[in-house]
Every structure is written in C-alpha cells, then in structure tokens.
C-alpha cells in the first residue's frame, strides 16, 4: 500500500453553506467537530457514508443557536404588533401625501399585472386544449415520417393503401400484434382538422348542415366526451349507428332522450339510427364534431373526402412508449409492400401535445403554437419587470424625502432588517392595491380580449389554478419592485443623511439610468416586433395572389348537383340571374388546395415508372414532383382572372382540349422540361398535351412556397365546388339569385356558401391573433415605460429646483431649461435604441423564416420604431420640464 494517499474531504458546498450561515462565535467548534467526525466516519464506514453524514449534519445545524444573528447588539423582537401598525400608517400616509407618485406607481404596476394576467389566461387556455381527457397521459397520436431519396416529410396521416379494389389501413390489426395497445381509434379528417366541410342531415322537413366526422367504436371509451343518452360502449359499433351532439339532437328531436333510436337521413343517401347523444364538444377540444359516424360505414359505404386518417392509441397502464413505437413499426413493415419507393416510419406523440406542437421538422413534430406560448410568456415576464422597474425608479426618486425618515429611524434604533421589512411590506401593500385595480381592469376588458383572441376565457377568480397565481404575483411583484428601494434606502448612513442634503453616488445614478435603458430597450423591441408582425400580416392579406379573390363565392357540389344535367342547368340558370357574372367549377376551393399528388402519398406502391400517377414526356425514372392537381371548368381561368405566361388557355372551341393540360411555371421548373408546350403529359388515366403555362399563383397559404400545379379541364365533375363570380357591389342580389336557383335544383340540401376572401383570411387566424396581442402589448409596454420616465424626470427636476432657480435668475429661458432636462433622458432612449435594434432584428429574421413569402426587414421599420419611442419619451419629459422651467425662481430659491 504505497499508493499516494489524498486525504478525503467533506463536500465543499456543504462546508461553504455552513460557513455562510453559521454564527462566528460557534463556527470554529462546529466546523472542528464536523471535520473530526468526518474523519472518524471515513475510517469506520467509508467515504460515501461519511460525506452523506456530513451533509446531514450541516443541514441539521441550521438551528437558531448556530445561525448568524443580523445584529447582535439589539435584542428587540423583530417586529412587534405596534410596529406593524405603525408601518401601515406610514405607508398609507405616504400614498396619500404623494398622490401623483402613488398614482403612477399603482397604475404602472396594475397595467403590468393586467397584461401578465391576460397572457397567463391565454397561455393557460392554450395549454388546456385537448388536455381534459382522463386517460390523457396514455393517449398517443400516430404520426408518419416519410423518407424518399430526396426528402423527409411528416404528418398526422396514417398510411392507407388500396388493394384488390379495397381501401385498407395497415394499422387496423395493431391491437393483436402489440398487446400494449388497449384501444385504437381512427378519426377521419379533411385536409386538416376539423373535417373540412359540413354535411347535410334530414329528418322529415328539417334540413340542416352540420360538421362532423367518423370514428372507431372505442372512441367514447378513450376520449372524455360525455355521453348523455344511449350507451357509449355500443354507440359506434353498429354499421347504421350515428352519435350526435346535444345541439344536433335539439335541432332534430328536441331532447336528447327523444333522439335515441330515431333515424336520420344523411346526404339524402343513407339512413342512420341515433345510438347515442353526447354533450356538445367543449371549446378546448381540437376535434370539433356535431356527429360521429361509425368507422365501418366510413370504410364501406361513404365517400372518402381524402385519405387522411388520424389514428389515436390508448396504451395500457405502464406501457413503455419507445418499445411500443418500435413494435408498431415492425408490425407496419410487415403490412406494407416491400417495393414502395419510400420508407414509412411511424411515431407516437402524446395526444395532448398535438395542438401545441403540430409542425413537422425533418418528419418529426417540432414547434407550432408552443412557440407563441413561449414568446408571450416571455413578454409577460418582461412587461412585469418593466412595471417593477418603474416602481423602483419612482420610489428611489422619492427617496430624498424618505431618506430623512430612514435617518431618524436609524438614529432611534431601527435595525437594517426592520427597515428592509418595512419597505418590502410597503411595496407588497402597493402591489396588492395594484392587483385589485388590475382585476377590475381585467374583468372590464375580458370580453374584448375574448373577441380579440377568439376564445371563451372566464375570469381567473372562477378558476382554481389562479388562486395560487394571484398571491404569487403580488409577492413576486412586491419583492422585485421593492428590492431596490428596500436594499438601497436601508443602507444609507444616518450621519450623512441627517447632516445635510443627501447626494446620490454615481453608481446609484447609473443604476437607475441602466434600468431606464433596459425598460426602453424592451419597449423598442416590442415596437419593432409589432411593426414587423403587423406588416407581414397585412402583406399576406393584401398581397396579390395571382388571382382576384374579391367577389368570389363558392358552393360545395352535393346532392343532385353532382349529376351532370343538374349541374349544367344550375350553371346556365345562375349565369343569367342578376348580380352574377360567371359560374364555373373547380375540384377544390382555389385558396387552400390541400391535395397533393406525388409518389409519397401512397398512391404509387411500386418503383415502376408506369405506375406513377403523373407522367410526362421525357420524365426520368426516380424524379419526384409533388403536384397539386386540380380539375376545372372551361371558364375557370376567366373567373379567377389567372394570367397565362405562355401558350393559351382552355377553350370549348378546340375539341381536343378535353384532353389538354395546363401547368404552372413552378411545375415547368421542377419537371425539368424544355419547351413544354405541345409535349404530352398524363395524369391517371387521362393523357393529353400541355397547351399553356400559367403564371404562378398561390393555391394555399403563404406559409408554403408555390407548388407545381397541374390543371385539367372538364365541363362537369361529381365533386368539388361551384365558383361564382359576382358583379362588384351586387353581392346581395347575387346571393338572392343563387339561393333561388339552388332551391329549385337541389331542394334536399340547404344553400350554403363561402366567400373566398373571408375563407382566405381564416388561413391566417393565428397571425391575426398574434398581431392584435402584440399591438396591445407594445402599447402597454411603452405606456408603462413612459410612466417610469416621467418619474425619473420628476426626480431630476426636484433635485435641481435650486439650480434652475439660479439659472432663471441669471437669465435662462424656459427652452434652455427644457433642453437641459431632456438631453440626459433622450440620450438614454438613444442608447436603448442601439441595444434594441439588433435584438429585435434578429428575432424577427427568425420569425419571418416561417413564411415562404415575406416582407423585407427594411431599415425604416427600425428608424420609425425608434422615432416613435423617442417622440413619446420627449413628450413625457416635456410635460415635467416645461413645468419646472415655468416655476417662479422666487419660490424655488426662497425656502431653505
């Protein structure tokens, strides 16, 4: 045993902790004893036990006899009841004596708190979406990651395959293969949630369009949508069964109980029997449906609006997600064709996350609304800090007066601890008042806020979770806001205060200026952010999409309209009616085309080029182009006002045009085809020539780049939408005419229509909400900062009253004095501007990356924001500066 031996030492942090809290008169013996004991333990039980024991001992010594006393000289009780009362009286006197200061203080804090509370409510509400299911922690959505040679994409769709003329879902038998899966549910979606369009139901004379979906038999066992009539176990088990909402039951059958067992005619085609009535779907559910048709019907006898299936699994208690994921993948590979030209991988995402994290990056869920939640939570904290800084600035500004009080208190024998306690207590009382004010504000503004955000948020007082938040908010604000005055004022030396006029040290001044800079930086950042976001939003809403979206109405083709003669009759009759310019059809509403055909969507199951959905002259094997296919009528180009880049549009006069195609410029680029006009192209069974190239136009939201488009022409198709171009300013007449024609031709379906421009704007709801919120918050932040600035100026003016008096006596004008006062503060705003610009610029650069089409981050946005901040600050300063400039020097110089 000639090894070099290092003596074991006790954990260093514990020793440090001990040294920190331990009173000096006992620290030596305690440390000594502890070390001796430690060595003894090392010898006897080994290092591990010894260290553990040492830590326990150190913690155990945190007892009154060993803890440092703040002051060993005075032994009065920390605060007696009388003192509490006294402090309250002093606080109340201070509030009422300096009404302006107190008003600024409390308003500033209240504004900050209101803002914070609103954001909290919003965040809480967003987090609550899909989070109300009792089995929530065992519910998982399946998402698929599709890998091809060139790309990785992800989505919530579950693979669907066609084989032997049947649609089947490879995942259907997963329960047998993976025992951890307790329930599986398929939920049909449109191109996105919810289902996408409403469907028509009829009972006797009653005719209504409602939105709903299809779901598997275990749906009600997995999700907490309470069933109020009928049996939830069998509700969706029967082929002819349908479950409907309370609202729908009331529409058709008056009461839920009445509805059970009654039959409903669906789309004038199939009769369903009501098997269950469920409570109306709550607002915080991302699945929205008024009815659910059983999955068997969906698979066997209903139309597939799209192949999109959302699969949710409920795992058994204690199942390991990773291993289930692996098993599911193994199982699916056995079900899929080996020759598929792409690789599918399935993943599980907790069901409750799908609302917040619904974007896919590299085929995995990442980001989404959660980003806004993070940003706004950050904003909430910053605004609260701005408000707290205000409080600090205002109370230190007032501290010249209060310093005397501190001096007297100290002389009489107050300890520093009790002074700190007093100031903290005061700020907590003030922040409590601010909270009351902000609750009043909150309740007054809540309806507006709900309209703003499109939510139905209730008062936080009604919600248990915020009972914890409100006191926490008061204490946090009180402590942060009171920290500087409490720690600073209590540290003043009584001799110096009482001797004469108190001067602040340079560092104290710098600290306050620093705070003001911080405040203004945040405000300017928020201003810039707001400007960029609202400009981007308005860019989206006003940018030219390549087609004319005003005065466009679309109607879904359903009922008898899907018959050729009826459709043509409708078109001919409607075109003759007043207010209507043109009528034609399209297979999809043109502002948000969701359907993409490429070799990734599961239509092609082999690598063979002959099987590709879309082929063209000179296509190379392995090229994959994601086409948006659309089938339109002959007048579509005219209705939409589309521009042709090359070649010509469809024409009824040219008989071969029924087999003609048009593509857009993007398609030409991606297909790598030269001189495309006249080359053959085929889509599914149809083969024809390219007759024209369309100028690129937006077929979906501006989040995505323009995709290749392939357009074919058909006078009639049994699905899709009817597009109606109305004459400008005659919308009312047009709607009346359409209603009339619709009723005569398609009497079994209610007339329902959408305005294209309105639907288009709905694509950007999220951005709009964010714009509104950020507008409001930027204004608030500026407002609060200005309150703070006002306080600083007031302070500075007060300190320099005599100086200004002398200056005026010697001949200074009001302008001189205003300039003198403003200079300093304007410099602060300029510094803040320099700090804020790069920060905001970078953040906005990142945000804009999410859009394929975006505005430039031009310099004037920054300059304008800075200018606004400067002007507001200047106006605030001037209010006070002019006032002190106008003061009669006799008054300011008289007193001493």
């Amino acid at each position, binding site marked *: 045993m000639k090894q070099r031996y290092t003596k074991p030492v006790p954990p260093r942090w514990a020793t440090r902790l001990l040294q920190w809290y331990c009173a000096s008169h006992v620290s030596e*013996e305690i440390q000594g004893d502890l*070390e*001796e004991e430690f060595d003894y333990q090392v010898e006897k039980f080994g290092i591990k036990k010894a260290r553990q024991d040492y830590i326990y*001992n150190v913690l*155990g010594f945190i007892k009154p*006899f060993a803890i440092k006393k703040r002051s060993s000289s005075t032994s009065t009780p920390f605060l007696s009841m009388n003192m509490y009362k006294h402090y309250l009286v002093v606080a109340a006197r201070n509030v009422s004596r300096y009404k302006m200061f107190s008003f600024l203080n409390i308003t500033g804090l209240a504004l900050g708190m209101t803002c914070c509370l609103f954001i909290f409510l919003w965040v809480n509400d967003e987090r609550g979406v899909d989070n109300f299911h009792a089995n929530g922690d065992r519910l998982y959505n399946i998402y698929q990651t599709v890998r091809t040679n060139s790309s990785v994409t992800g989505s919530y769709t579950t693979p669907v395959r066609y084989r032997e003329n049947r649609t089947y879902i490879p995942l259907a038998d997963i329960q047998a293969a993976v025992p951890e899966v307790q329930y599986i549910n398929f939920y049909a979606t449109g191109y996105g949630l919810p289902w996408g369009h409403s469907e028509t139901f009829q009972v006797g004379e009653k005719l209504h369009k409602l939105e709903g979906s299809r779901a598997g038999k275990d749906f009600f066992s997995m999700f907490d949508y309470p069933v109020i009539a009928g049996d939830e176990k069998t509700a969706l088990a029967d082929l002819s069964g349908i479950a409907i909402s309370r609202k729908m039951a009331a529409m058709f059958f008056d009461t839920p109980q009445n509805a059970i067992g009654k039959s409903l005619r669906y789309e004038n085609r199939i009769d369903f029997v009501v098997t269950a009535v469920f409570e109306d779907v709550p607002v915080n559910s991302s699945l929205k449906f008024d009815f659910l048709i059983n999955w068997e019907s969906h698979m066997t006898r209903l139309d597939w609006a799209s192949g999109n299936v959302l699969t949710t699994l409920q795992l058994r208690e204690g199942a390991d997600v990773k291993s289930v994921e692996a098993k599911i993948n193994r199982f699916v590979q056995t079900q899929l064709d080996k020759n598929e030209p792409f690789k599918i991988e399935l993943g599980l995402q907790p069901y409750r996350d799908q609302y917040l994290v619904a974007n896919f990056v590299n085929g995995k869920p990442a980001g989404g609304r959660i980003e806004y939640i993070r940003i706004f939570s950050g904003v909430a904290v910053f605004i609260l800090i701005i408000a707290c800084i205000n409080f600090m600035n205002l109370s230190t500004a007032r501290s010249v007066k209060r310093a005397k009080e501190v001096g007297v208190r100290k002389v009489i024998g107050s300890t520093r601890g009790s002074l700190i306690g007093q100031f903290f207590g005061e700020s907590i009382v003030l922040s409590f008042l601010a909270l009351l004010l902000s609750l009043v504000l909150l309740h007054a503004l809540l309806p507006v806020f709900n309209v703003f955000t499109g939510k139905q948020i209730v008062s936080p007082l009604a919600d248990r979770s915020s009972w914890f938040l409100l006191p926490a908010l008061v204490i946090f604000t009180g402590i942060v806001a009171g920290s500087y005055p409490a720690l600073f004022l209590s540290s003043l030396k009584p001799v110096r205060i009482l001797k004469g006029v108190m001067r602040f040290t340079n560092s104290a001044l710098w600290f306050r200026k620093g705070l003001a800079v911080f405040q203004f930086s945040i405000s300017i950042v928020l201003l810039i952010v707001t400007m960029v976001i609202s400009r981007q939003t308005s860019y989206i809403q006003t940018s030219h999409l390549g087609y004319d979206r005003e005065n466009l109405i679309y109607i879904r083709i359903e009922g008898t309209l899907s018959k050729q003669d009826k459709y043509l009759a409708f078109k001919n009759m409607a075109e003759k009616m007043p207010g209507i310019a043109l009528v034609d059809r399209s297979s999809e509403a043109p502002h948000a085309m969701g359907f993409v055909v490429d070799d990734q969507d599961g239509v092609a199951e082999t690598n063979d080029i002959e099987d590709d959905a879309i082929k063209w002259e000179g296509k190379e094997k392995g090229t994959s182009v994601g086409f948006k296919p659309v089938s339109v009528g002959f007048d579509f180009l005219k209705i939409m006002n589309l521009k042709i880049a090359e070649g010509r549009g469809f024409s009824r006069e040219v008989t071969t045009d029924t087999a003609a195609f048009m593509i857009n410029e993007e398609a030409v680029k991606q297909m790598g085809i030269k001189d495309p006009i006249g080359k053959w192209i085929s889509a599914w069974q149809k083969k024809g020539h390219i007759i024209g190239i369309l100028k690129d136009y937006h077929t979906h939201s501006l989040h995505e780049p323009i995709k290749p488009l392939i357009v074919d022409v058909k006078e009639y198709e049994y699905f899709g939408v009817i597009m109606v171009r109305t004459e400008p300013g005659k919308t009312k007449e047009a709607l009346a005419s359409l209603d009339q024609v619709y009723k005569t031709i398609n009497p079994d379906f209610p007339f329902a229509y959408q305005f294209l421009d309105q639907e288009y704007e709905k694509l950007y709801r999220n951005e709009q909400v964010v714009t509104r919120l950020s507008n409001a918050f930027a204004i608030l932040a500026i407002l609060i900062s200005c309150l703070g600035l006002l306080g600083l100026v007031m302070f500075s003016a007060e300190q320099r009253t005599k100086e200004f008096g002398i200056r005026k006596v010697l001949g200074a004008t009001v302008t001189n004095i205003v300039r003198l006062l403003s200079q300093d503060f304007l410099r602060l705003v300029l510094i803040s501007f320099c700090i804020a610009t790069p920060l905001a610029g970078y953040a906005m650069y990142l945000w804009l990356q999410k859009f394929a089409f975006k505005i430039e981050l031009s310099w004037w946005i920054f300059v304008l924001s800075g200018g606004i901040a400067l002007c507001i600050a200047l106006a605030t300063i001037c209010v006070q500066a002019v006032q002190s400039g106008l003061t009669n020097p006799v008054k300011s110089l008289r007193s001493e």
Partner: protein
Amino acid sequence: MKRTYLGEFEEIVLLVVAMLDRQAYGVNITHEIIEQTSRSVRLNQVHAALHRLKDKGMISSRMGDPTPERGGRRKRIFSVTAYGRQTLRDIQVVRTNLWNLLPSSMKLITDL
C-alpha cells in the same frame, strides 16, 4: 424545591459530560452516547443540547488547545457546573425515592 426542567436527552448529555470529566467536547460526547445507549445520535443534536444546558447554567465551557486532526481548530471543552452537578444529584434522589416506593411485586419483575 424548584428546579430547572431537564429533558431526558439533556440529562444523558449532562451525565456524559460529567463522565468524560474535563475532556468532553462535541465529537467524543456523541460517540460516548452512541456507545453507551446505542441510540443513533447526531452531532448537531448534541450541540443543540449542549447549548440548552449552557443556557440553563448546568455546564460551562472553555476553548481548548488546537489539535491537528481537526484542521488546527480548537475544541470547546465542556465541564459540569456546581449547579449542574446539584441538578443531577437531585434527579438521582428523586428517582431513588420513587424506586423505593414501588410495590415489591414491581421491583421483582424489574429485578429479573
């Protein structure tokens, strides 16, 4: 006779201090208690008890000489004051009296 209340643990500590006779300090008091009573006792508990005893005036203390094994720190050596000794004796007397007053059957059981 009025006397200061002495807790059971305090009594043990006081006895051990008396037993160790001018050598008593935190660590060896602790070890002695563990050895004699086989209780699991912590250093901090002993220190706290010593503090209380000192406040009650039953023990006095002085700083000893520095020793190398504790990083050169001094020990605080405790010794029992006259008052402490008196208290211990009082307790002893009270107990003995009580024992003598026990019925003989009880004594037999405990003697076994």
